């Protein structure tokens, strides 16, 4: 049975698109037929993060309006064989994304894909609502920071009350907490909420912790999802997230500050 996963957060800039790109790539790397959909109509960016911006010809609105077939609009990822990207429209009005149209596309995608990852826009407006409405599972991306935690709580309330599963009284959306931009050093100094604090407040199961890292910017600069970066904590953390999502039990990593080695202490560097 294909699964629809929404990557959501409420607050902007916490790492939804970074997560959507790496998470969908990770699923595909494990042999799952995966499609990732950008729901941020008017402000599309998933194409840039995936490095396929120059190959975008048609978008989700073209498909909804019946101007092109789904096959024509899907872009094959350059790094993974099993991964396709469905871009958002850059020019249209966000109201063009209606529930009926989206449901039709999702049903068609379900015929050929195992996982459908929906990259939600920020906010709680129609775009975010449409992205989460049909979800079976949700990755709630949260930064260890008060406004992000509050917005995540708000989103959890919406998932529990307004999603299709909630409205139709089905089994609720399976929620996963993903903490991103985590800085164990600052947590140990008492300057940042810890993962335990956030879990205690939001009360949903933790699927992973992505450490704050320079490699995320490097990845977006080059249009290669962070999960492909070599020797990067972020890439390993995202691979762990995908493994846990697939049912593997792995201990949490990157929760404690690395003690600086001798050379690092002498010569500095980061």
């Amino acid at each position: 049975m294909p699964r629809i996963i929404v990557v959501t957060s409420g607050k902007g800039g916490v790492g939804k698109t970074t997560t959507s790109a790496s998470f969908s790539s990770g699923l595909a790397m494990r042999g799952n037929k995966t499609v990732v959909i950008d729901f941020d109509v008017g402000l599309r960016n998933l194409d840039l993060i995936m490095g396929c911006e120059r190959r975008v010809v048609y978008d989700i609105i073209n498909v909804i309006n019946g101007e092109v077939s789904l096959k024509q609009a899907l872009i094959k990822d350059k790094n993974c064989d099993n991964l396709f990207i469905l871009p958002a429209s850059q020019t249209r009005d966000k109201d063009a994304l209606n529930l009926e149209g989206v449901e039709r596309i999702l049903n068609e995608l379900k015929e050929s894909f195992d996982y459908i990852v929906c990259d939600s826009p920020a906010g709680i407006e129609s775009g975010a609502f449409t992205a989460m409405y049909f979800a079976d599972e949700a990755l709630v991306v949260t930064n260890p920071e008060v406004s992000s935690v509050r917005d995540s709580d708000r989103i959890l309330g919406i998932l529990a009350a307004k999603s299709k599963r909630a409205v139709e009284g089905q089994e609720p959306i399976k929620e996963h907490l993903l903490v991103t931009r985590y800085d164990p050093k600052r947590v140990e100094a008492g300057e940042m909420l810890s993962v335990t604090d956030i879990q205690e407040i939001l009360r949903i199961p933790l699927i992973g912790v992505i450490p704050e890292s320079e490699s995320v910017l490097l990845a977006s600069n080059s249009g290669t999802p962070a999960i492909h970066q070599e020797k990067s904590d972020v890439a390993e953390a995202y691979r762990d997230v995908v493994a846990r999502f697939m049912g593997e039990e792995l201990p949490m990593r990157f929760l404690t500050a690395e003690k600086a080695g001798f050379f690092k202490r002498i010569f500095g560097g980061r």
Partner: protein
Amino acid sequence: MSMISGLLEYLRGDTKKTAVIAKERLQIILAHERAGRGGATPDYLPALQEELLMVIAKYIHVDRELIKVQLEKHGEYEVLELNITLPENAHNS
């Protein structure tokens, strides 16, 4: 944090870390907002707050901002919390 301000903080015994403050603030505001979802907040709350304010204002000159009425859920109980910060010269008026 500089050494001097750190030392001052230590001497004042004022060592509450900001992460602890963040957690406490979140727990309070989210309890409030969660109660507000799903129509759990009774609609008489704003009116009650208004009337309480008027009664209090008859006796004490207080700033409106310093009065807070909150309804919190603790398990099965709901606690109506009324918080009034009195100004220093409240007794003279």
